[in-house]
């Protein structure tokens, strides 16, 4: 019981501390901690991302709240996990804002962010790659044809138009309901 809490805290401390580059870039980090450790399946992880997209709030918070509850089965676990993911950045941001002039001039911050930019692209790509599996696209060929079709169509809509991602998810859900 207490072991679950400690593992959650350790996982979400890392996620909070190394979560650079926004929600999508954090996905591969979250995935590594919660899917690879066997807490949830890759399919459940994808579902959490979907739920997170459809509800307000940042994905880092949403995943912590959901996984904290699923792993411990209690509201307390959910609360502890959510607070854990914001604690390290809370402290660091507070310190940085007190040394704002120093911070702005810092060659380390400037250089580090230049180096992080291409890495963030790779982090997001790895999250996409890790989710391209049978759990999300189906095991049978007919199912795969449909899911790959949904994926390509959704990509085109999101990338080439200004349609909101929530609408894309809703349409994909309706498609799923009709064809499966």
């Amino acid at each position: 019981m207490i072991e679950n809490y400690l593992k959650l805290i350790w996982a979400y401390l890392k996620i909070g501390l190394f979560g650079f580059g926004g929600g999508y870039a954090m996905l591969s980090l979250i995935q590594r901690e919660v899917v690879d450790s066997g807490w949830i399946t890759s399919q459940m992880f994808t579902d959490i991302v979907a739920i997170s997209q459809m509800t307000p709030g940042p994905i880092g918070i949403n995943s912590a709240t959901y996984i904290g509850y699923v792993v411990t089965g209690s509201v307390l676990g959910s609360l502890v996990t959510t607070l854990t993911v914001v604690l390290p950045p809370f402290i660091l941001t507070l310190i940085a804002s007190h040394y704002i002039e120093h911070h702005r001039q810092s060659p380390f911050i400037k250089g580090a962010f230049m180096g992080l930019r291409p890495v963030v692209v790779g982090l997001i790509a790895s999250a996409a790659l890790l989710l391209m599996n049978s759990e999300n696209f189906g095991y049978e060929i007919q199912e795969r044809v449909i899911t790959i079709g949904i994926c390509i169509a959704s990509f085109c809509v999101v990338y080439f138009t200004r349609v909101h991602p929530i609408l894309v998810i809703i349409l994909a859900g309706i498609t799923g309901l009709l064809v499966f």
Partner: protein
Amino acid sequence: MAMNNLYLQLFLTFSKIGAFTFGGGWAMISIIQREIVEKHKWIALDEFLDLLAVAQSMPGILAVNISVVIGDRLKGIKGSICAAIGTILPSFLMILAIAIFLTPDTIKNNEIVSRIFKGIRPAVVALIIAPVLTTARSAGINWKTVIIPVAVALLIYSKIPYISNPIIYIVLGAIGGYIYYMRSLLRQGGKEANDD
């Protein structure tokens, strides 16, 4: 407005932002700016942009980091706690309710929900592929530098123990970027190199 109400104001303003913005950090910035700079006039625009730069350069959740710097600027640490709790609370309560009622078993065992999610999952993957391309463009990735994101993505995907840990590449990227930056400064004649 009475000063002792500012804590409450911070909490309420950020919980409104937290409750009504979909999509996290970047989507939130313009709404936070509207509330903080234009509506409440708590902070001038140039200072807001400075604070935003600090929030962006720190790890974690951008929306929370912004609320921390603004709360701290207005009311110190207590202010930043009020603002951060405001940002977190709405999504925490909403996701908690979903976690209680829409458990993984419900998704699997309810036929209708299960069919809906079968359609949603490939769309979620598409939603993650799209920002790969948009961030690659904004990061100025070219044929020479594309090796970095490709190598990072494949090494993480490889699932090889230790090698596949994303933290390695975040640390390497930061250190590598710093070394590269310092070297380019030195090559320019070292004018700014001894700033820090």
